[in-house]
Every structure is written in structure tokens, then in C-alpha cells.
């Protein structure tokens, strides 16, 4: 369908593009969000796994180290082996735990401090072993003054070392805490930034989705609706089916337009046939004049509506049979058409003219007076007589005899008193007029043909007039 659109993109292509765009933006948003989460998660993980753990470890370590000071004091003051052993066990237990905790911190930044702590730990451990040996002698009363001095010195040193260790660990903990605070604020910044990014991406996604919606609403749904409205219109105009564009909808509208055009052409054709049939039903095929049926209907209407007097004329071609006999029916038919044309040409557009059959024509015209009617039809007669029928170089002279009868529509009552046959309906009026006109025609024939006779009742006096040669002839 898009093939004929040249460079235009089809609806399918546009749908694919828009869907892809929405998908790409949605996927991008999801992926970026995922990445942001992974990064944030990684940071939290790092805080929890290393920093927080190290902070807790150093806090534990500090507690244990502080207990070393008091334990060291108790140890050096032990008076019995029981106290010495008990305190030694506690001391060694703590030193052991401190060693492990110190090792836990080993991988942390600030390794120098850890090394110092480790070295202090070793010193404490060695001193404690030495102290234990000397204390044992002291409790047994076997220690020399030098050894007693060593006990005092080592004991003092242990307290000092434990104190230093505690300070170092405190420093270590503080730096971890500092680090933690820094990481935490970075995390906070990062997460705020990620939030912003996410909002931006979501807005972009929203914009893309809305644009897609607008595109479909106007470009697709709107044009389809326009098409639908155009088709729904009782008078479908093919031009109104043009929706523009170069896509499937445009192609659909073209198809629809072609379809409507075809339907309309078909319709016109059908109407023509119908009109022709209607014409044939109401007209004489030979002369194309109205037939009797049409004449009757039209005459009824005229009789009902005409504001003035009407004149009914029955026109008969004189000696027509001899034309047929002499020249053949074809010539006869052409002669009939010739006369019909002359008659039609002599009458006004609004006048009724019909062929009643054979060589007889009937006309009904609106006239101002009987006189005017007589004059009109005499002119007709004259015109026919003056316009011979030319056929193959032959000139065939033709004349007509015309019988006239007057009818007075809408004024039957006032006129009726004067009529011998009161007519209460148009039909009656028509029939009466036809009878009268026939009689007048008869009179015209009998009077020698090529003349116009007015039915006697229609005249102003009681006589039919022969109107030929400028004067009525009485029927």
C-alpha cells in the first residue's frame, strides 16, 4: 500500500518506529535505573561489608583493649596463684580475641596503624608471659629486688601499651567513621542524583508516550474519523474522502474514493435508465411528444391550478393516410415528426402538447380569451401549411385541421350555469373539452380541412367559428 507513496513512510513503519522508540526509552530507563540501583547497592554493600564491619570490629577491639588495662593491673597485683592463673587466662583470652580482631582489620586502609597495633599486641603478649613467670616467683616469695622492679616496670609498660593501643584503635575507628560519613554522604548525593535522573528519564518516557498518543489520535484516529464522517454523509462527495498523507490510511481513502465514484457513476447510470423509462412511459416514442397518459395527468394539473381559461385543441393532419399510401410509412413517420416539431415550435414552453395516436395531436394552452385562442391555433395551422415537409428532395405539403374547446378551471360555478354539461371535476372538464374539441375538429374536417373550428359552447355566441384565414368558422 505504501509502495505508491514514494518516499512517505507507511503506518506500519511509523508504528514500528514509535514502538521501537518507546521501547528503547523504556528499556533505557529500566537499564539506567537498574545500573543506578546496582551502583547504590554496591555502595551500601561496601559500607556494610567493610566500613561498618570494620567500625564495629574496631569498637569491639577498643572495648577489649580497655579491659586489658584493668586486667593488667589486677594481674600484677595478684597475691595468689589462683588469682594469677585466673587473671592470666582472662588476659590471654582477650589478647587472643584482640589478635583476631586486629587481623580482621588487616585489610583495611591505614595499615600502618594496624601494624602498630599488632606490634603492641605482640609486646603485650610477651610482657604478659614474662610477668607471669616473675609473678609466680613473687607469689612464692622467691623474687629478687631486681625482678620485683621488672614486675613494676613491665606492669607499668603493659598499662601504657594497652593505653596506646586503645588510642590507636580509637584513631582507627575515628578514621573509619569519617570514611563512613563521607561514603554515606556520597551515597546520599548519588541517590539524589539517581532520583533526578530517574525523574528526567520518566519525563522523557512520558513525553515519548504522549507524543505517540497524540500522533495516533490525530494522525491515525482523526483521519479515520474524518473518513467515517465523510462516508456517513448522505451526499458522499468523493473529494471529501481525501485525507492527505502517504500512508495506509491515505491509500484506504483513495480506495474508498474510487469505490464511491464507481457507485455514484452506477447510480447516475441507473437514474438515466430510470428517466428514460419514465420518459418512454409518458411520451410518444416517434415524436417524443407527451402521450395521452402524460397529457391527461398534466391537463388535470393545469385544470386544477390554471388561473385563466384554457384552450384545448385537437389537431389532425389532413389526408395523412394518403401520405402513408403515397410515400410509405417511413415517410409518414417522418412527416409526423415534422408536424410534431412544427407544433411544438409554435407553442410556448408551458403549453401542453401530446400525440394522441395516428395523426392526431392534442394541445392545451392557457389563453386570455377565446379570440386569442382562435388566433393562436390559426397561426399554428398557417405555420404547418407554410412549412412543407421535405423528404429526399420531395416536398410534401401538409395541412392540419384543428378543433378547439375552451375550459375554465376554478370558475366552473359561475361558468357552469352557462354550460350545458356542468363539470364538477377536472376530469369532467377535460372530457367535456375533448368531446367539444373533437366535435369542432369534425366541423373543421367537414368544412374542408386546413381550418380551425371552435366548439360552439365555447364561443362568445352560440355558433362555432371557423377561424381559418383569420376568422373563426362555426363548427
Amino acid at each position: 500500500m505504501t509502495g505508491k507513496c514514494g518516499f512517505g513512510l507507511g503506518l506500519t513503519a511509523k508504528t514500528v518506529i514509535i514502538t521501537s522508540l518507546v521501547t528503547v526509552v523504556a528499556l533505557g530507563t529500566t537499564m539506567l535505573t537498574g545500573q543506578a540501583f546496582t551502583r547504590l547497592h554496591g555502595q551500601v554493600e561496601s559500607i556494610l561489608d567493610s566500613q561498618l564491619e570494620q567500625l564495629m570490629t574496631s569498637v569491639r577491639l577498643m572495648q577489649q583493649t580497655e579491659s586489658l588495662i584493668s586486667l593488667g593491673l589486677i594481674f600484677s597485683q595478684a597475691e595468689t596463684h589462683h588469682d594469677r592463673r585466673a587473671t592470666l587466662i582472662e588476659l590471654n583470652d582477650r589478647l587472643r580475641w584482640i589478635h583476631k580482631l586486629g587481623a580482621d582489620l588487616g585489610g583495611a586502609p591505614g595499615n600502618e596503624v594496624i601494624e602498630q597495633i599488632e606490634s603492641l599486641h605482640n609486646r603485650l603478649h610477651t610482657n604478659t608471659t614474662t610477668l607471669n613467670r616473675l609473678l609466680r616467683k613473687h607469689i612464692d616469695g622467691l623474687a629478687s629486688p631486681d625482678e620485683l622492679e621488672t614486675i613494676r616496670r613491665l606492669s607499668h609498660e603493659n598499662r601504657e601499651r594497652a593505653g596506646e593501643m586503645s588510642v590507636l584503635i580509637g584513631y582507627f575507628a575515628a578514621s573509619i567513621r569519617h570514611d563512613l560519613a563521607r561514603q554515606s554522604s556520597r551515597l546520599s548525593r548519588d541517590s539524589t542524583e539517581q532520583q533526578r535522573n530517574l525523574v528526567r528519564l520518566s519525563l522523557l518516557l512520558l513525553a515519548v508516550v504522549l507524543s505517540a498518543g497524540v500522533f495516533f489520535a490525530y494522525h491515525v484516529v482523526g483521519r479515520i474519523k474524518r473518513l467515517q464522517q465523510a462516508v456517513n454523509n448522505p451526499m458522499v462527495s468523493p473529494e471529501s474522502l481525501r485525507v492527505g498523507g502517504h500512508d495506509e490510511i491515505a491509500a484506504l481513502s483513495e480506495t474508498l474514493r474510487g469505490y464511491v465514484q464507481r457507485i455514484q457513476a452506477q447510480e447516475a447510470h441507473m437514474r438515466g435508465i430510470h428517466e428514460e423509462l419514465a420518459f418512454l412511459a409518458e411520451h410518444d416514442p416517434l415524436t417524443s411528444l407527451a402521450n395521452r397518459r402524460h397529457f391527461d395527468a398534466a391537463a388535470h394539473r393545469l385544470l386544477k391550478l390554471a388561473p385563466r381559461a384554457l384552450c384545448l385543441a385537437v389537431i389532425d393532419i389532413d389526408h395523412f393516410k394518403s401520405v402513408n399510401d403515397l410515400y410509405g410509412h417511413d415517410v409518414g413517420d417522418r412527416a409526423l415528426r415534422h408536424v410534431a416539431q412544427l407544433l411544438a415550435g409554435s407553442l410556448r414552453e408551458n403549453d401542453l402538447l401530446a400525440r394522441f395516436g395516428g395523426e392526431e395531436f392534442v394541445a392545451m394552452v392557457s389563453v386570455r380569451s377565446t379570440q386569442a385562442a382562435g388566433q393562436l391555433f390559426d397561426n399554428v395551422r398557417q405555420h404547418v401549411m407554410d412549412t412543407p415537409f421535405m423528404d429526399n428532395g420531395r416536398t410534401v405539403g401538409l395541412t392540419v385541421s384543428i378543433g378547439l374547446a375552451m375550459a375554465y378551471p376554478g370558475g366552473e360555478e359561475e361558468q357552469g350555469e352557462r354550460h350545458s354539461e356542468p363539470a364538477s371535476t377536472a376530469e369532467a372538464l377535460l372530457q367535456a373539452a375533448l368531446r367539444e374539441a373533437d366535435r369542432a375538429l369534425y366541423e373543421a374536417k367537414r368544412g374542408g380541412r386546413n381550418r380551425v373550428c371552435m366548439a360552439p359552447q365555447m364561443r362568445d355566441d352560440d355558433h362555432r367559428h371557423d377561424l381559418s384565414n383569420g376568422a373563426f368558422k362555426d363548427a
Partner: protein
Amino acid sequence: MLDTLPDLNLFSLSCRLRAGFRCLRPGMLAVLTVVGMVLCPGALARDDVRLGIQLEPPALDPTVTASASAGEITYGNLFEGLTMVGPNGRLMPRLAVSWQRSEDGLSYDFTLRRGVRFHDGREFNALVAAFSLRRILADDSGNPQRNWFAKIKAVETVGADHIRVLLHAPDALLPFALALPAAVMVHPASVADNATQPVGTGPFRLGNWERGRMVSLIRNENYWGKAPALARADFVFMHASSETGNMLAEGLVDGLISVTRVTDRFMVRPDYRMTERGLESKLILAINNARPPFDDLRVRQALSHAVDRSLLRELYGPQFSPVMIGSHFAPTHPAYVDLQGRYPYSPEKARALLETAGVSEGYEVELIIPPTDYGRYGAQSIADDLEEIGFRVEIVEYEWDDWLEKVFRRHDYALTLILHVEPMDIDIYARDDYYFNYDNEAFKHIWSQVLSADSEGEMNRHLQEAQRRITEDAVNVFLLMRPEQNLMHRDLSGFWEKSPIPSFILEDLRWTR
């Protein structure tokens, strides 16, 4: 055979914090909320556990080390035997689906489970089972429970999934012996590395052994049996008492395998509870019977009189009142003889015995302890008691490896305070070259009578005789039965409480909340 302990929980804390962080993103768009919900589904349903244990075994292969902690970590979890003692304390099939004893009692036919594979994908079959049993019997096997299998004459394979064990003499206890950690099935292809990279058939496989810190077990997704609820279990080693206290206080472990002195105070915490275990752990002051002056019966008897056992009652804290013993025998056994009163506390009598034996005042002796709470705190009162009768005592704490090497293997010690956790292990007194250096023909004879007893009554009579014999010989100072309890998180369930095997079975363990 020798001692063990607790467990931890930093990991779970981190998990919760992480989950909490993920869920706490106020002000985020609905998209994020959905993402968040996807990211932390059921964030509180844990499938990991951290268990504190005191002693780190020198090897993770219970067939080569006497350290019971090897079995506590691996038995039933990583390794499996042909039989097993179930959670209710009853013997049940494991890698053998059934067994039949011959009429004369001189052979057992075991039908093996099919479709079992080792963690490395190798198949378990009759050849592997026969290999595992023959390996125990080898002269140089170093298997700590080899004596249990002394009556085995030969092991034959009968088809792909049948083995026949031929005996020198009837042995009704063989199916039980096969349930010991030292009798687990191992594959010839992986056995050489089992000490550090154990490969078994169990529901868990080794994740990682971080020396000095912990052993991680990971769920074996190809396990032949029911998959355990836990995906991971960490056994965290707690070398110092202060460490145990710290770890428990901070909730860094979910439980502690076997109570210690420091666990007592944690019972006030609502998140911990005590769960029973079915062990028969005997605390003894072991004596090197070959080292003078302790090769003298009078000296050993003096030690038995010298120790004031009542002071040891509170070794596990005031909430526990351990059962005192007078021999190397659990009071729950029908053959138990109460010999507590044989050596009543009497420093005077002890001094007199020492004097008779010619032990001079101020004789120096080292009391060696393993790195355990009971060692540290139990040794103090024993040292005081020994000092009371004239010894000069120094308590020396050994690393567990050192203890196993110097004391247990090389017998280089005089006195040591130690816990024997294996059930019914009085046979150790009949072993040649055992670290007590008892090596007593009379006792060996008694033990042979125990083994060849025709009836339970007869066997029990000989067992009683055996108890009396070692008590009379004052081989060791028999102290007490350890209160068999674990300190565990309240929300953990599925413990094998009745199993007498020193083990901590994970397969039914799960979090209830």
C-alpha cells in the same frame, strides 16, 4: 571424640540492612516502588544460618581425625554413612537401603542406595562402599574409631549395589558403628584431599574453609534425597571466650553448638533458647599413665581425691547442674555403675597418698587445656585443688591442632582437661597406644569379654566390671557429663535432638519466621 562448640550472625544483619535500604526509598516514583518490590521479595525469609563452634578441626574428614568437631560440621551434612542415627535416636538406613545379618552372625549383607553421587559427580556404588570400609581397617588408616570395626574380617562386593561384610565373630553393633562419623563413605578418587576439600554424598557440599574463621557449607543441588531448606550454613570458629561473648551479644551468630560457661547469661535474651542434644560427653582430667609420677596408681588416686567436683558444678553456669560421674560411662546407660563416691574429695587423703608415693611438695606439673571455655574455667579450680595437695600447677592452653598433635598423638603431656563426646566409648581404655597410656591387660581382657558377650545381661555385667576397673585404676579423674544443650535462635527449628552422634545435622534445619 574430643569436644566442640557455638555459632554466628553478622551476615544476616547485613542482609537485613541491605534489604531495608532497598525498601526505604521514599519519594521515588511508582516505577521504583515496583522495582523495589521486585528486588526485595520476602526479604525476611532467610535460608542461611551461622553457627558458632569452639574447636576448629585440623581436617574436615572425620575418618582421619579424632577431633569430634570434624564430624560435627561434616557428618550427615557433607558426608553420609551406610547407616545413620536419626533425629529420634534410632538407627535408620542412609546410603544402604537395607541390611541382613546372616544366621550365624558372621556376615552382613548391605543393599546400597542407587543413584547416589558424590559432590564431584562420581557415582557411589559397591566398589566405593567396600573401599571406604577397607580403608578404615587398614593398619595405617588413622581412623579414630577403627576399634569399632575390629571384628571385620573382609569386605566383599556382591554386584553393583551389594556388599557383604564378613566378621571374625558376631557383632550386633556393626550397623550402629557404621553410623559413626568415622565410617562415612568416601570416594577413592577424592579421598586424598578430603581433609581440606571434602567430597561426600551429603545434602551440603563444601563452600569454603577460611582457616581460623569458618567453614561454609552450600546446599548440594544434586542431592539424591530431600533438599534441605537452608542454602548455606557457616560454622564459625570461636577461639576465645570473650569472642564467644561478643559474637553472641551482637547476634553475629544464630546459635552456639553446645553450651559453654559464657552462654549462660545469654539465656535471658528473648531471641535465644536452649535446644537439647543427645550426646554423652564426659569431662575428664586425663592423666598420662605412663609418665612418672602418674604411672603410680597412688598418685592418680591422689588426684581423684584432690579434685573438688562440687566446684565444677557451675562450670556451665548456675542454670545447669551437670551430672557427676565416677567412671568413663554415661549414667543413662543400663550398665551404668555409680562410682561417684569411690574417691571422695579429701585433700588429706590425697596428700597422704602422694607422700606414700614419694611425690615431693611443690612438684611442678602442667595442666594442658584445649582452647575451650571448659578448659579455661574448669582448669582453674582443678589447678587450685592440685595446688592444695602440694603440686605447683601451671595451666597451659594449647591450640587445638597442638593439643591433637602433642597430647593426643605424641602423648607428650602429664595432665589435660578434656571432653570425650563419643557415645559408649569406654573401649578407648582397651586401645593400644591411646593417649592415656593406660595399656592395661586386665582391662583389655574385660573388654574382650564385653565384645564376646552372648547376651545383653552378660555384656552389661562386663561393662560394669570395665567401669569399676578404670575407676579402681584411677586412669583419669572422671568429672562430669556436659549438659547437652545448644544455644540457638528461637526461630530456628528442625534439630536432631536425640542423635547421640557428635554432629549437627542441617538437613531439617529451617527458619520458622
